[in-house]
């Protein structure tokens, strides 16, 4: 069991949990958190390198490092693991954000409990990304969701009880749909007569889900994951949740957990039920297309920094789901890149907001101004994050958005020219408009918060970033810039994943 490298993505957090339990003081806790997340980061980078090597020789199988250990035989539940380019990208993203999140919560109250829950959460996240067994996947998904309640409820700010409750309940509501969908998939996972399975690779290979069932199960799973992906109209947990969550939790939640939604939509809903995805995509296209502009418009008038970014996340994550539904390679590649990009830059945003909030004790942009003069380092980082968010070339947002637009425009035009309606085309154009609206709200915040005269003279005494804050933000900026400068590396990594079988049904 321990010969498979992937299992260590779960083992390391578990060991961290045990060690955190033994820690006596805050230094030990920090040491454990940083060492553990560094180990995870190292592991994921090693995995990336190793994966690229293996891919040279094996470009056929949809996943590598596959392995399966029986867990509960009567129901065919296994701990089945395997990764492809997308999972590796997500693993790297998660470990980067865990690392930077640990730095960002350097001075948290009750560090031991906080890190325990945080690491438990990331156990779920890593487990989710390495699993290919639907049941295990779902289990890890739940493991990732539940600590969120405590993290927000205990360490949060503002209306934290309300937000924590709302977030948890809405996500659990989504999981209820999801579970229904997954069980449905399980019962149709194999052709008549052969044993059922939870393993999604086998399910995809069997392709035994009847079309009538797909039409029922696809919305279940898509909505189930879509709630976590902040799909309109199930996004309202996100503004409140993010606004109340402590910094690291906001980072991890917006940066990684919301990606679970997009990843799940892709991996489960679309990968297993391409027929229904093709048939029903228009409903969700409308919803996600609305998300994209709707979130952006809402962000334009909000005055709370975290709300602005939460709505911005709604918009950007909407773009992820939107692109996935375009059902072509380019747009899907763009979707995954957008997941990476959004994960990093939104984590950066939330880290910065947390740091600013920690100093000024307000998140209202009407109560602040001229931060560039007081906190130059944080402000510059904020400008960079903003630029990444509004899609400046050279940073990650641009490449992801452009890939999405090119891909979805292609899908839209193909539909339009084939006489299959202009829905995709119209919504692609609508989604394109978001780049302007994004510029509006980002520049509004930047102009009000960072530039201009100092609003509150009490703020003049604030000190700029400490070393751990610098480390945390700089790491994220480097990652954002890396994707922005060398997009083809990531794009190739992701694209190798789209084995033709995904598109077999679609005839693309």
């Amino acid at each position, binding site marked *: 069991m321990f010969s498979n490298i992937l299992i260590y993505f779960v083992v390391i957090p578990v060991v961290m949990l045990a060690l955190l339990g033994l820690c006596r003081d805050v230094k030990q806790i920090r040491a454990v958190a940083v060492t553990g997340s560094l180990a995870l980061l190292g592991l994921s980078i090693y995995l990336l390198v190793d994966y690229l090597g293996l891919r040279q020789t094996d470009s056929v199988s949809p996943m590598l490092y596959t392995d399966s250990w029986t867990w509960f035989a009567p129901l065919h539940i296994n701990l089945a693991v395997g990764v492809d380019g997308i999972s590796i990208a997500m693993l790297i993203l998660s470990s980067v954000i865990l690392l930077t999140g640990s730095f960002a919560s350097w001075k948290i109250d009750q560090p031991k409990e906080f890190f325990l829950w945080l690491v438990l959460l990331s156990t779920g996240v890593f487990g989710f990304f390495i699993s290919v067994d639907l049941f295990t996947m779902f289990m890890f998904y739940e493991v990732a969701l539940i600590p969120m309640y405590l993290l927000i409820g205990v360490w949060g700010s503002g209306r934290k009880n309300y937000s924590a409750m*709302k977030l948890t*309940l*809405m996500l659990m509501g989504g999981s209820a749909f999801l579970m229904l969908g997954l069980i449905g998939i399980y019962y149709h996972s194999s052709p008549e007569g052969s044993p059922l399975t939870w393993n999604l690779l086998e399910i995809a290979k069997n392709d035994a889900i009847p079309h009538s069932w797909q039409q029922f199960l696809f919305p279940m799973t898509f909505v189930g994951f879509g709630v976590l992906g902040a799909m*309109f*109209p199930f*996004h*309202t*947990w996100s503004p*409140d949740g993010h606004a109340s969550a402590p910094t690291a939790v906001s980072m991890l939640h917006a940066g990684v957990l919301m990606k679970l939604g997009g990843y799940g939509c892709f991996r489960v809903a679309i990968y297993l039920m391409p027929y229904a995805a093709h048939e029903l995509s228009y409903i969700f296209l409308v919803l996600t297309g609305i998300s994209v502009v*709707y979130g952006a*418009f*809402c962000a*334009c*008038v*909000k005055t709370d920094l975290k709300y602005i970014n939460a709505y911005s996340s709604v918009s950007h994550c909407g773009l992820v789901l939107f692109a996935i539904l375009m059902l072509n*390679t*380019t747009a899907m590649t763009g979707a995954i890149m957008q997941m990476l990009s959004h994960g990093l830059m939104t984590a950066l945003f939330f880290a910065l907001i947390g740091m600013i909030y920690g100093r000024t004790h307000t998140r209202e942009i009407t109560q602040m101004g*001229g931060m*560039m*003069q007081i906190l130059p380092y944080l402000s510059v980082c904020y400008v960079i994050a903003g*630029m990444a968010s*509004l*899609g*400046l*070339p*050279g940073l990650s947002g*641009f*490449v992801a958005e*452009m*890939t999405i*637009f*090119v*891909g979805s*425009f*292609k899908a839209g*035009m193909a539909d*339009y*020219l084939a006489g299959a309606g202009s829905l995709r085309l119209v919504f692609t*154009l609508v989604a*394109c*408009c978001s*780049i*302007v609206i994004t*510029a*509006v709200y980002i*520049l*509004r915040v930047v*102009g009000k918060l*960072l*530039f*201009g*005269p100092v609003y509150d003279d009490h703020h003049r005494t604030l000190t700029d970033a400490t070393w751990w804050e610098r480390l945390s933000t700089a790491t994220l900026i480097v990652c954002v810039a890396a994707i922005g400068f060398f*997009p*083809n590396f990531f*794009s*190739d990594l992701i694209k190798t994943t789209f084995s033709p079988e995904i598109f077999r049904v679609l005839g693309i």
Partner: protein
Amino acid sequence: MDVTIPILILSIPMFMFVFLGLLGMKMTHKLAGVLGCLGMGTVLLLSYYTAYVYFFSGAPEFVNAAGERLQYLVFDQTWLQFTDKLTIKIGFLLDPISAMMLVVISTISFMVHLYSMGYMRDHHGVYEHGFQRFYAFLSLFSFSMLGLVVAPNIFQMYIFWELVGASSYLLIGFYYIKPSAVSASKKAFIVTRFADLGFLIGILVLSYYTGTFNFTELTSVPVEGIAGVTQIDLGTAEGVRGIFANSAAPMFMGASVLTWALVLIFMGGMGKSAMLPLHIWLPDAMEGPTPVSALIHAATMVVAGVYLVARLFPLYLMEESALVIITVVGAITAFYAAVVACTQIDIKRVLAFSTISQIAFMMVSLGVARPEIHEGLGYMASMFHLFTHAMFKALLFLGAGALIHAIGSNDYTAMHGLRKYMPWTHITFLIGCLAIAGIIPFSGFFSKDEILSSCMGYDWVAYIWMSLVAGLTAFYMFRLYYLIFWWKEHKIPEGHHAPHDQPWTMTLPLVFLAAVSCVAGFIPFGNLVSWNGHPYDFMEHFDWSVATVSLIVALLGIGLATVMYRKENSLPEKFRNAMPALWTWAYHRFYWDELYMFITHRIIFGCVCRPLAWFDRHIIDGTMDSFAAITNKMSDVIKPLQSGQIQMYVWYYLVGALALGGITVLCLL
């Protein structure tokens, strides 16, 4: 050609940006400035060398046997692959216009780098706060602009297009403490972003049909024998035309898809080049430091739109309707901006509107260019005017900067009669004014004359219209000139010493640019730049009747300005009172800003964003909350059942059981 030099041209400014951006604060102001200038100086030399090699070496990859200039792809590196066909590449395309632009950009940029060494410090020689940052941003801008002009494909152009937008944003907002600068930078970015949306959609449409981003494939045919070399030709354009003619849905809302694509791409150009509906950002952009205005908002970035149209010119030739749109937009903008420029009192705004007007000239020139009219003279004239305009407008802006630096105000009412105090500035500014007014032998005369000639060849209405604008140009420029340097004696406010000329770092660029403006008209531009690379002597198309008329018009404008503004008098006042409505409207720039404010704040923010936010909080969120509320209510309703009264429990149980039993008895037994 060796790839080292092109790579260096792009990477030195990039490196300077990162270097100064990260380490600038650790070094002294002067060191940062000197490093910036050195870097840019190197780029200048390399660009000159490249342009020289391209134009004059006569190597077979640059010029073919017939003497036609070719497009040469120095390198082309895959950057992001979308599909098998669509790939963004980062490359370096050398052809007449990109070589010319390399020269323009590196020259102006270097001049501005040098000039800023003097400008960005006060009278006591203390450098401004953020001086290093200023140089870092200048380097970023230079990098982006160079990358834009050498782009071999439209997506690279779009990438650098965005980058120049961002660096323009950063530089306009350089004085970020000033709220007006912040809002101006925001406005500039958002307006151009809006235009870029059209550009992007245009790219998407174009690339969907043609399956390529490359300019060469869109406009040229490869030359046999040498890799990476192409010849601009209508022939491939025929191929592209075939694609559009045979595509499944060539029409969309009454226009062909190609027209749509080209108009949308032109929309991007309209944004960057401040054409009429999207021009509002440029006057406000003058909030930035004056060298920035000279570099970005006069000479280089704002002509990107013209450059874009010129790049895709063979495609535009396929759709005359798109060219007509360009002509009309350009003509209206030119006139509008000239009228507005006549009434402004902020000298930088006058120059800004003058820039808008002059760029519109270039646009019109492109719009009226046809291969059959004087061998496509309009194209050449447009590029020529781009070149000369860059020089003399940068000169004017730098001169204005010198004045502002000396006086400390943008308002000419604070200036008046400065000619005695600042002779160098006076002379160079005068040269700039003469050049822009189109007085022989200054450079503006030649380029403007070519534009008017090609207008003449296209349509006499366009010719008359543009001549009128040229007359207005001469008028408002000399109005400005007289109001600054003549009008009445300069009053020195108490406690101030007399304004004086500037240090050599500022004078040198002025003198250099003035010299260029004097002689640039004699460059045989037609030999260097033409729409298909075929060289010709533009003096063949030089029409003395046109030249005479335009000269007379210019002199008329100057004469009128002399009469009205040379000495303090009441003529302008009378003039203004004669048509107060026109004057007020022109003074308020025909209320475009107010219109946009209305649309953005009232319509977009007030009628879209706020209702949406309200909808989100109250309807969507309210629905979710009401689920919770309903659950709570339900629990409140059934909670009393758990009253703790055991007798009630028994009662409920019993009645329930009996009901079940009764039903069983009645129905089943």
